[in-house]
Protein backbone atom coordinates (compact mmCIF):
# COMPACT_ATOMS: atom_id res chain seq x y z
CA UNK A 1 0.00 0.00 0.00
CA UNK A 2 1.34 3.41 -0.92
CA UNK A 3 1.95 5.58 2.09
CA UNK A 4 -0.27 8.61 2.15
CA UNK A 5 1.55 10.16 5.08
CA UNK A 6 5.10 10.82 6.18
CA UNK A 7 6.46 11.89 9.56
CA UNK A 8 6.26 15.64 8.90
CA UNK A 9 2.63 15.63 7.79
CA UNK A 10 0.07 17.26 10.05
CA UNK A 11 -3.22 15.35 9.93
CA UNK A 12 -6.42 17.19 10.74
CA UNK A 13 -9.99 16.01 11.05
CA UNK A 14 -12.03 16.80 7.93
CA UNK A 15 -14.58 19.54 8.75
CA UNK A 16 -17.52 17.37 7.66
CA UNK A 17 -16.72 14.88 10.45
CA UNK A 18 -16.79 15.37 14.19
CA UNK A 19 -14.78 13.51 16.83
CA UNK A 20 -16.44 13.34 20.21
CA UNK A 21 -16.01 11.55 23.53
CA UNK A 22 -19.17 9.65 24.44
CA UNK A 23 -19.51 9.12 28.16
CA UNK A 24 -22.34 6.58 27.94
CA UNK A 25 -20.44 4.43 25.43
CA UNK A 26 -17.08 5.00 27.09
CA UNK A 27 -15.30 5.64 23.80
CA UNK A 28 -14.53 8.21 21.12
CA UNK A 29 -16.92 8.28 18.18
CA UNK A 30 -16.78 9.83 14.73
CA UNK A 31 -19.99 11.55 13.78
CA UNK A 32 -21.19 12.39 10.28
CA UNK A 33 -24.54 12.87 8.56
CA UNK A 34 -26.90 10.29 10.06
CA UNK A 35 -24.06 8.03 11.12
CA UNK A 36 -21.55 7.19 13.79
CA UNK A 37 -18.43 5.05 14.04
CA UNK A 38 -17.24 3.87 17.45
CA UNK A 39 -13.48 3.95 17.80
CA UNK A 40 -11.34 1.48 19.69
CA UNK A 41 -9.34 2.92 22.56
CA UNK A 42 -6.13 3.13 20.50
CA UNK A 43 -7.89 4.60 17.44
CA UNK A 44 -9.46 7.21 19.71
CA UNK A 45 -6.05 8.16 21.12
CA UNK A 46 -4.68 8.65 17.60
CA UNK A 47 -7.71 10.54 16.28
CA UNK A 48 -7.74 13.01 19.14
CA UNK A 49 -4.16 13.95 18.24
CA UNK A 50 -5.20 14.79 14.67
CA UNK A 51 -5.59 18.37 15.83
CA UNK A 52 -4.02 20.21 12.91
CA UNK A 53 -1.05 21.19 15.12
CA UNK A 54 0.94 18.02 15.80
CA UNK A 55 2.84 16.32 13.03
CA UNK A 56 2.91 12.54 12.91
CA UNK A 57 6.34 12.22 14.42
CA UNK A 58 5.29 14.34 17.42
CA UNK A 59 2.09 12.38 17.61
CA UNK A 60 4.03 9.13 17.96
CA UNK A 61 6.32 10.64 20.62
CA UNK A 62 3.31 11.88 22.51
CA UNK A 63 1.67 8.44 22.38
CA UNK A 64 4.90 6.86 23.62
CA UNK A 65 4.68 9.02 26.74
CA UNK A 66 1.23 7.65 27.45
CA UNK A 67 1.98 4.06 26.42
CA UNK A 68 5.68 3.51 27.17
CA UNK A 69 7.31 0.49 25.62
CA UNK A 70 4.61 -0.08 23.01
CA UNK A 71 5.63 -0.47 19.38
CA UNK A 72 3.28 2.13 18.01
CA UNK A 73 4.68 3.43 14.81
CA UNK A 74 3.24 0.83 12.46
CA UNK A 75 -0.17 0.93 14.11
CA UNK A 76 -0.33 4.70 13.87
CA UNK A 77 0.46 4.75 10.16
CA UNK A 78 -1.91 1.87 9.51
CA UNK A 79 -4.76 3.59 11.31
CA UNK A 80 -4.09 6.95 9.64
CA UNK A 81 -4.35 5.22 6.26
CA UNK A 82 -7.74 3.80 7.23
CA UNK A 83 -8.91 7.15 8.59
CA UNK A 84 -7.80 8.85 5.40
CA UNK A 85 -9.49 6.27 3.17
CA UNK A 86 -12.71 6.92 5.08
CA UNK A 87 -12.34 10.65 4.60
CA UNK A 88 -12.11 11.36 8.36
CA UNK A 89 -8.76 13.13 8.13
CA UNK A 90 -6.67 15.02 5.64
CA UNK A 91 -3.22 16.57 5.62
CA UNK A 92 -3.20 20.16 6.71
CA UNK A 93 -1.89 22.32 3.90
CA UNK A 94 1.31 24.16 4.78
CA UNK A 95 0.52 27.86 5.13
Amino acid at each position, binding site marked *: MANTFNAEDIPVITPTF*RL*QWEQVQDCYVILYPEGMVKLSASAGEIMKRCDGVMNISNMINDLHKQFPGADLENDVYKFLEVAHANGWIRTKQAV
Partner: protein
Amino acid sequence: MPMAGSEQNKLSKPLWLLAELTYRCPLQCPYCSNPLEIARYDNELSTEDWIRVMRQARAMGATQLGFSGGEPLVRKDLEELIAEARHLGYYTNLITSGVGMDEDRVKAFKVAGLDHIQISFQASNEELNNFLGGTKTFQHKTHMAHIVKKYEYPMVLNIVLHRKNIDQIRDILDMTIDLHADYVELASTQYYGWSRINVDQLLPTRAQLDHAEQVAREYQQKMKGKMKVIYVIPDYFENRPKACMNGWGAIFLTIAPNGTALPCHAAGQLPGLEFPNVRDHSIEWIWNDSPDFNKFRGFDWMVEPCRSCPEKIKDFGGCRCQAYMLTGDARNADPVCDKSPYHKQLHDDVERIGKLADNKEFNEKPLIFRNMKNSKKIITERQAETSELS
Protein backbone atom coordinates in the same frame (compact mmCIF):
# COMPACT_ATOMS: atom_id res chain seq x y z
CA MET B 1 -40.70 -11.70 36.13
CA PRO B 2 -38.25 -10.49 33.51
CA MET B 3 -39.90 -8.88 30.53
CA ALA B 4 -39.38 -10.20 27.03
CA GLY B 5 -36.11 -8.88 25.69
CA SER B 6 -35.05 -7.44 29.00
CA GLU B 7 -31.50 -8.62 28.46
CA GLN B 8 -31.21 -6.75 25.19
CA ASN B 9 -33.08 -3.99 26.95
CA LYS B 10 -30.18 -3.36 29.31
CA LEU B 11 -27.72 -3.15 26.46
CA SER B 12 -29.67 -1.16 23.90
CA LYS B 13 -29.60 2.62 23.82
CA PRO B 14 -31.70 5.03 21.80
CA LEU B 15 -28.74 6.18 19.73
CA TRP B 16 -30.91 7.76 17.06
CA LEU B 17 -33.54 10.28 18.06
CA LEU B 18 -35.87 11.37 15.29
CA ALA B 19 -37.78 14.51 16.26
CA GLU B 20 -40.79 14.85 13.99
CA LEU B 21 -41.45 18.46 14.95
CA THR B 22 -44.63 18.90 12.94
CA TYR B 23 -46.70 17.21 10.25
CA ARG B 24 -47.44 20.56 8.65
CA CYS B 25 -45.73 20.67 5.26
CA PRO B 26 -45.93 22.93 2.21
CA LEU B 27 -45.40 19.87 -0.01
CA GLN B 28 -47.92 17.15 -0.77
CA CYS B 29 -45.79 14.21 -1.92
CA PRO B 30 -48.01 11.19 -2.57
CA TYR B 31 -45.34 8.81 -1.19
CA CYS B 32 -44.93 10.57 2.15
CA SER B 33 -44.10 8.16 4.97
CA ASN B 34 -46.06 10.17 7.53
CA PRO B 35 -49.25 8.55 8.80
CA LEU B 36 -52.45 9.03 6.82
CA GLU B 37 -53.96 10.63 9.95
CA ILE B 38 -51.66 13.70 9.87
CA ALA B 39 -54.71 15.92 10.45
CA ARG B 40 -55.01 14.47 13.95
CA TYR B 41 -51.60 15.74 15.07
CA ASP B 42 -52.36 19.42 15.61
CA ASN B 43 -51.52 19.26 19.32
CA GLU B 44 -47.77 19.82 18.85
CA LEU B 45 -45.18 19.65 21.61
CA SER B 46 -43.90 22.96 22.96
CA THR B 47 -40.29 24.11 22.80
CA GLU B 48 -39.86 23.17 26.47
CA ASP B 49 -41.22 19.67 25.82
CA TRP B 50 -38.72 19.12 23.00
CA ILE B 51 -35.82 20.39 25.10
CA ARG B 52 -36.76 17.99 27.90
CA VAL B 53 -36.97 15.09 25.43
CA MET B 54 -33.57 15.95 23.94
CA ARG B 55 -31.95 16.19 27.39
CA GLN B 56 -33.38 12.88 28.57
CA ALA B 57 -32.49 10.98 25.40
CA ARG B 58 -28.98 12.45 25.36
CA ALA B 59 -28.43 11.32 28.96
CA MET B 60 -29.28 7.79 27.79
CA GLY B 61 -26.68 7.94 25.04
CA ALA B 62 -28.50 9.37 22.01
CA THR B 63 -25.98 10.92 19.62
CA GLN B 64 -27.72 11.42 16.31
CA LEU B 65 -30.66 13.79 16.27
CA GLY B 66 -32.81 14.30 13.19
CA PHE B 67 -35.12 17.28 12.97
CA SER B 68 -37.78 16.08 10.63
CA GLY B 69 -41.49 16.33 9.94
CA GLY B 70 -43.55 17.22 7.93
CA GLU B 71 -41.41 20.22 7.25
CA PRO B 72 -39.36 21.14 10.34
CA LEU B 73 -38.75 24.65 8.99
CA VAL B 74 -42.39 25.41 9.75
CA ARG B 75 -41.45 25.48 13.44
CA LYS B 76 -40.39 28.98 14.44
CA ASP B 77 -38.37 27.61 17.36
CA LEU B 78 -36.14 25.45 15.14
CA GLU B 79 -33.08 27.67 15.68
CA GLU B 80 -33.55 27.47 19.44
CA LEU B 81 -33.93 23.67 19.34
CA ILE B 82 -30.81 23.29 17.21
CA ALA B 83 -28.78 25.44 19.60
CA GLU B 84 -29.91 23.40 22.59
CA ALA B 85 -29.28 20.10 20.77
CA ARG B 86 -25.78 21.09 19.79
CA HIS B 87 -25.10 22.33 23.31
CA LEU B 88 -26.11 18.89 24.58
CA GLY B 89 -23.58 17.25 22.25
CA TYR B 90 -25.86 15.85 19.56
CA TYR B 91 -24.85 15.53 15.94
CA THR B 92 -27.71 17.55 14.50
CA ASN B 93 -29.32 16.69 11.17
CA LEU B 94 -31.93 18.86 9.50
CA ILE B 95 -34.11 16.82 7.16
CA THR B 96 -35.99 19.27 4.99
CA SER B 97 -37.63 20.01 1.66
CA GLY B 98 -35.80 23.34 1.64
CA VAL B 99 -39.13 25.16 1.47
CA GLY B 100 -39.24 27.82 4.16
CA MET B 101 -35.46 28.24 4.05
CA ASP B 102 -33.52 31.31 3.04
CA GLU B 103 -29.93 32.45 3.40
CA ASP B 104 -30.55 34.25 6.71
CA ARG B 105 -31.97 31.12 8.22
CA VAL B 106 -29.13 28.92 6.97
CA LYS B 107 -26.73 31.43 8.56
CA ALA B 108 -28.69 31.33 11.82
CA PHE B 109 -28.57 27.50 11.81
CA LYS B 110 -24.81 27.67 11.40
CA VAL B 111 -24.52 29.99 14.39
CA ALA B 112 -26.77 27.65 16.36
CA GLY B 113 -24.37 24.79 15.54
CA LEU B 114 -26.33 22.69 13.03
CA ASP B 115 -24.08 19.92 11.67
CA HIS B 116 -25.75 18.77 8.49
CA ILE B 117 -28.58 19.56 6.10
CA GLN B 118 -30.45 17.05 3.98
CA ILE B 119 -32.61 18.43 1.18
CA SER B 120 -35.16 16.34 -0.67
CA PHE B 121 -35.80 16.62 -4.38
CA GLN B 122 -38.82 15.02 -5.99
CA ALA B 123 -37.22 14.76 -9.44
CA SER B 124 -34.43 16.22 -11.57
CA ASN B 125 -36.67 18.37 -13.71
CA GLU B 126 -38.84 21.24 -12.70
CA GLU B 127 -42.12 19.98 -14.11
CA LEU B 128 -42.11 16.55 -12.48
CA ASN B 129 -40.60 17.86 -9.23
CA ASN B 130 -43.34 20.43 -8.90
CA PHE B 131 -46.06 17.98 -9.89
CA LEU B 132 -45.00 15.37 -7.32
CA GLY B 133 -44.58 17.89 -4.54
CA GLY B 134 -47.85 19.56 -5.45
CA THR B 135 -46.14 22.98 -5.38
CA LYS B 136 -43.60 25.03 -7.35
CA THR B 137 -40.41 24.42 -5.42
CA PHE B 138 -37.72 23.20 -7.82
CA GLN B 139 -35.94 26.51 -8.44
CA HIS B 140 -35.98 27.34 -4.76
CA LYS B 141 -34.57 23.92 -3.82
CA THR B 142 -31.62 24.20 -6.20
CA HIS B 143 -30.93 27.72 -4.91
CA MET B 144 -31.01 26.45 -1.32
CA ALA B 145 -28.62 23.60 -2.17
CA HIS B 146 -26.12 26.25 -3.34
CA ILE B 147 -26.57 28.21 -0.11
CA VAL B 148 -26.09 25.08 2.01
CA LYS B 149 -22.74 24.44 0.32
CA LYS B 150 -21.81 28.13 0.58
CA TYR B 151 -22.02 27.74 4.36
CA GLU B 152 -19.86 24.60 4.17
CA TYR B 153 -22.36 22.10 5.46
CA PRO B 154 -22.04 18.47 4.58
CA MET B 155 -25.02 18.10 2.27
CA VAL B 156 -27.15 15.05 1.63
CA LEU B 157 -29.59 15.15 -1.26
CA ASN B 158 -32.43 12.71 -0.91
CA ILE B 159 -34.54 11.58 -3.81
CA VAL B 160 -37.36 9.12 -3.26
CA LEU B 161 -37.56 6.80 -6.26
CA HIS B 162 -40.73 5.30 -7.72
CA ARG B 163 -42.22 4.43 -11.10
CA LYS B 164 -42.73 8.04 -12.17
CA ASN B 165 -39.15 9.25 -11.68
CA ILE B 166 -36.88 6.20 -11.51
CA ASP B 167 -36.11 6.21 -15.25
CA GLN B 168 -34.52 9.65 -14.80
CA ILE B 169 -31.95 8.31 -12.37
CA ARG B 170 -29.08 9.42 -14.61
CA ASP B 171 -30.37 13.00 -14.77
CA ILE B 172 -30.99 12.92 -11.03
CA LEU B 173 -27.42 11.87 -10.32
CA ASP B 174 -26.01 14.46 -12.75
CA MET B 175 -28.06 17.10 -10.91
CA THR B 176 -26.65 16.02 -7.54
CA ILE B 177 -23.11 16.26 -8.93
CA ASP B 178 -23.82 19.79 -10.23
CA LEU B 179 -25.12 20.75 -6.80
CA HIS B 180 -21.97 19.38 -5.08
CA ALA B 181 -23.76 16.93 -2.83
CA ASP B 182 -21.55 15.00 -0.43
CA TYR B 183 -24.00 12.14 -0.13
CA VAL B 184 -26.93 11.11 -2.32
CA GLU B 185 -29.65 8.91 -0.96
CA LEU B 186 -31.64 7.23 -3.69
CA ALA B 187 -34.38 6.05 -1.42
CA SER B 188 -36.73 3.51 -2.87
CA THR B 189 -40.28 4.27 -1.82
CA GLN B 190 -41.29 2.16 1.17
CA TYR B 191 -44.95 1.33 1.00
CA TYR B 192 -46.32 2.70 4.26
CA GLY B 193 -48.72 5.53 4.88
CA TRP B 194 -49.44 7.58 1.79
CA SER B 195 -47.31 5.51 -0.57
CA ARG B 196 -49.26 2.39 0.38
CA ILE B 197 -52.54 3.87 -0.86
CA ASN B 198 -50.74 4.99 -4.04
CA VAL B 199 -48.80 1.76 -4.54
CA ASP B 200 -50.44 0.94 -7.90
CA GLN B 201 -49.15 4.22 -9.30
CA LEU B 202 -45.74 4.21 -7.62
CA LEU B 203 -44.30 0.69 -7.60
CA PRO B 204 -41.55 0.46 -10.22
CA THR B 205 -41.29 -2.46 -12.63
CA ARG B 206 -38.50 -5.04 -12.46
CA ALA B 207 -37.04 -3.65 -15.71
CA GLN B 208 -36.97 -0.14 -14.27
CA LEU B 209 -35.19 -1.40 -11.15
CA ASP B 210 -32.56 -3.28 -13.13
CA HIS B 211 -31.80 -0.14 -15.11
CA ALA B 212 -31.69 2.05 -12.01
CA GLU B 213 -29.38 -0.31 -10.19
CA GLN B 214 -26.97 -0.42 -13.11
CA VAL B 215 -26.82 3.38 -13.34
CA ALA B 216 -26.44 3.73 -9.57
CA ARG B 217 -23.48 1.32 -9.56
CA GLU B 218 -21.88 3.23 -12.45
CA TYR B 219 -22.09 6.52 -10.52
CA GLN B 220 -20.89 4.89 -7.29
CA GLN B 221 -17.70 3.93 -9.12
CA LYS B 222 -17.37 7.19 -11.00
CA MET B 223 -17.82 9.39 -7.92
CA LYS B 224 -15.84 7.28 -5.46
CA GLY B 225 -14.18 9.49 -2.87
CA LYS B 226 -16.12 12.58 -4.04
CA MET B 227 -19.79 11.86 -3.59
CA LYS B 228 -21.24 8.86 -1.81
CA VAL B 229 -24.21 7.33 -3.62
CA ILE B 230 -26.48 5.20 -1.46
CA TYR B 231 -28.96 3.06 -3.35
CA VAL B 232 -31.18 0.39 -1.84
CA ILE B 233 -33.62 -1.61 -3.91
CA PRO B 234 -37.21 -1.69 -2.69
CA ASP B 235 -37.72 -4.70 -0.45
CA TYR B 236 -40.88 -5.84 -2.27
CA PHE B 237 -38.49 -7.26 -4.85
CA GLU B 238 -36.31 -9.12 -2.37
CA ASN B 239 -36.53 -12.63 -0.90
CA ARG B 240 -35.33 -11.72 2.57
CA PRO B 241 -36.59 -8.87 4.73
CA LYS B 242 -34.47 -5.95 5.83
CA ALA B 243 -33.39 -5.71 9.47
CA CYS B 244 -35.98 -2.99 9.95
CA MET B 245 -34.79 -0.32 12.41
CA ASN B 246 -32.03 -2.78 13.45
CA GLY B 247 -34.72 -4.42 15.51
CA TRP B 248 -37.63 -3.04 17.50
CA GLY B 249 -36.51 -0.67 20.25
CA ALA B 250 -32.85 -1.36 19.51
CA ILE B 251 -31.48 1.99 18.30
CA PHE B 252 -34.26 4.20 16.98
CA LEU B 253 -36.60 6.43 18.89
CA THR B 254 -39.09 8.55 17.01
CA ILE B 255 -41.13 11.24 18.69
CA ALA B 256 -44.22 12.28 16.71
CA PRO B 257 -45.35 15.95 16.73
CA ASN B 258 -47.89 15.29 19.50
CA GLY B 259 -45.32 13.61 21.74
CA THR B 260 -46.12 9.97 20.93
CA ALA B 261 -42.97 7.87 21.25
CA LEU B 262 -42.51 5.21 18.58
CA PRO B 263 -39.83 2.59 17.80
CA CYS B 264 -40.14 3.66 14.15
CA HIS B 265 -42.00 6.42 12.38
CA ALA B 266 -44.55 4.04 10.82
CA ALA B 267 -45.38 2.08 13.97
CA GLY B 268 -48.29 4.30 14.97
CA GLN B 269 -50.60 2.27 12.72
CA LEU B 270 -50.11 -1.00 14.66
CA PRO B 271 -53.20 -2.04 16.60
CA GLY B 272 -53.15 -3.05 20.24
CA LEU B 273 -50.35 -0.65 21.11
CA GLU B 274 -50.94 2.56 22.97
CA PHE B 275 -47.52 4.13 22.55
CA PRO B 276 -46.49 6.25 25.50
CA ASN B 277 -46.38 10.02 25.27
CA VAL B 278 -43.44 12.14 26.39
CA ARG B 279 -45.94 14.46 28.07
CA ASP B 280 -46.71 11.68 30.57
CA HIS B 281 -43.51 9.66 30.80
CA SER B 282 -39.74 10.03 30.83
CA ILE B 283 -37.69 8.80 27.87
CA GLU B 284 -35.96 6.39 30.23
CA TRP B 285 -39.25 4.74 31.23
CA ILE B 286 -40.51 4.76 27.65
CA TRP B 287 -37.37 3.11 26.29
CA ASN B 288 -36.60 0.65 29.08
CA ASP B 289 -39.91 -0.17 30.69
CA SER B 290 -42.92 0.68 28.55
CA PRO B 291 -44.76 -2.46 27.39
CA ASP B 292 -44.92 -1.20 23.80
CA PHE B 293 -41.17 -0.71 23.40
CA ASN B 294 -40.64 -4.22 24.79
CA LYS B 295 -43.35 -5.85 22.72
CA PHE B 296 -41.14 -6.98 19.82
CA ARG B 297 -37.74 -6.85 21.48
CA GLY B 298 -35.62 -9.96 21.47
CA PHE B 299 -37.07 -13.14 19.95
CA ASP B 300 -39.69 -14.46 22.40
CA TRP B 301 -42.58 -12.73 20.62
CA MET B 302 -41.91 -14.48 17.31
CA VAL B 303 -44.15 -17.05 15.64
CA GLU B 304 -43.17 -19.47 12.88
CA PRO B 305 -41.41 -19.36 10.46
CA CYS B 306 -39.28 -16.80 12.35
CA ARG B 307 -39.20 -18.55 15.71
CA SER B 308 -37.06 -21.47 14.53
CA CYS B 309 -35.27 -19.60 11.75
CA PRO B 310 -31.50 -19.19 12.13
CA GLU B 311 -31.66 -15.89 10.24
CA LYS B 312 -33.78 -14.24 12.92
CA ILE B 313 -30.66 -12.89 14.60
CA LYS B 314 -29.80 -11.10 11.36
CA ASP B 315 -33.11 -9.59 10.25
CA PHE B 316 -35.32 -9.80 13.37
CA GLY B 317 -38.15 -11.09 11.18
CA GLY B 318 -38.19 -7.89 9.12
CA CYS B 319 -40.63 -5.05 9.53
CA ARG B 320 -43.51 -5.25 12.03
CA CYS B 321 -45.54 -2.66 10.14
CA GLN B 322 -45.17 -4.47 6.83
CA ALA B 323 -46.12 -7.75 8.52
CA TYR B 324 -49.24 -6.12 9.91
CA MET B 325 -50.21 -4.36 6.68
CA LEU B 326 -49.80 -7.44 4.50
CA THR B 327 -50.86 -10.24 6.86
CA GLY B 328 -53.03 -8.62 9.52
CA ASP B 329 -50.73 -9.71 12.38
CA ALA B 330 -47.62 -7.75 13.36
CA ARG B 331 -45.97 -10.87 14.85
CA ASN B 332 -45.87 -12.67 11.52
CA ALA B 333 -42.76 -12.82 9.36
CA ASP B 334 -42.41 -9.86 7.04
CA PRO B 335 -43.90 -11.25 3.77
CA VAL B 336 -40.86 -9.98 1.88
CA CYS B 337 -39.29 -13.20 3.20
CA ASP B 338 -39.92 -16.15 0.90
CA LYS B 339 -40.33 -18.38 3.97
CA SER B 340 -43.51 -16.44 4.79
CA PRO B 341 -46.77 -18.09 3.65
CA TYR B 342 -47.83 -14.61 2.52
CA HIS B 343 -44.82 -14.10 0.27
CA LYS B 344 -46.56 -15.47 -2.81
CA GLN B 345 -49.42 -13.05 -2.37
CA LEU B 346 -47.01 -10.11 -2.21
CA HIS B 347 -45.05 -11.44 -5.16
CA ASP B 348 -48.25 -11.87 -7.21
CA ASP B 349 -49.31 -8.35 -6.38
CA VAL B 350 -45.94 -6.97 -7.50
CA GLU B 351 -46.32 -8.97 -10.74
CA ARG B 352 -49.86 -7.69 -11.27
CA ILE B 353 -48.76 -4.07 -10.90
CA GLY B 354 -45.74 -4.73 -13.14
CA LYS B 355 -48.00 -6.03 -15.91
CA LEU B 356 -50.39 -3.10 -15.63
CA ALA B 357 -47.64 -0.46 -15.46
CA ASP B 358 -47.62 0.04 -19.23
CA ASN B 359 -51.36 0.38 -19.36
CA LYS B 360 -52.15 4.04 -19.94
CA GLU B 361 -55.48 4.05 -18.17
CA PHE B 362 -54.04 2.30 -15.10
CA ASN B 363 -51.05 4.59 -15.00
CA GLU B 364 -53.11 7.73 -15.19
CA LYS B 365 -55.28 6.93 -12.22
CA PRO B 366 -54.85 10.04 -10.08
CA LEU B 367 -52.45 9.99 -7.15
CA ILE B 368 -53.80 10.78 -3.71
CA PHE B 369 -51.70 13.69 -2.51
CA ARG B 370 -50.59 14.02 1.07
CA ASN B 371 -52.41 17.01 2.50
CA MET B 372 -54.68 17.86 5.43
CA LYS B 373 -57.80 17.82 3.25
CA ASN B 374 -57.18 14.27 2.04
CA SER B 375 -56.14 13.21 5.53
CA LYS B 376 -59.42 14.46 7.01
CA LYS B 377 -61.34 12.67 4.27
CA ILE B 378 -59.51 9.40 4.99
CA ILE B 379 -60.12 9.74 8.74
CA THR B 380 -63.86 10.27 8.15
CA GLU B 381 -64.08 7.34 5.75
CA ARG B 382 -62.29 5.02 8.18
CA GLN B 383 -64.53 6.10 11.03
CA ALA B 384 -67.57 5.28 8.89
CA GLU B 385 -66.10 1.86 8.07
CA THR B 386 -65.47 1.10 11.73
CA SER B 387 -68.98 2.07 12.81
CA GLU B 388 -70.46 -0.09 10.07
CA LEU B 389 -68.45 -3.05 11.32
CA SER B 390 -69.38 -2.64 14.97
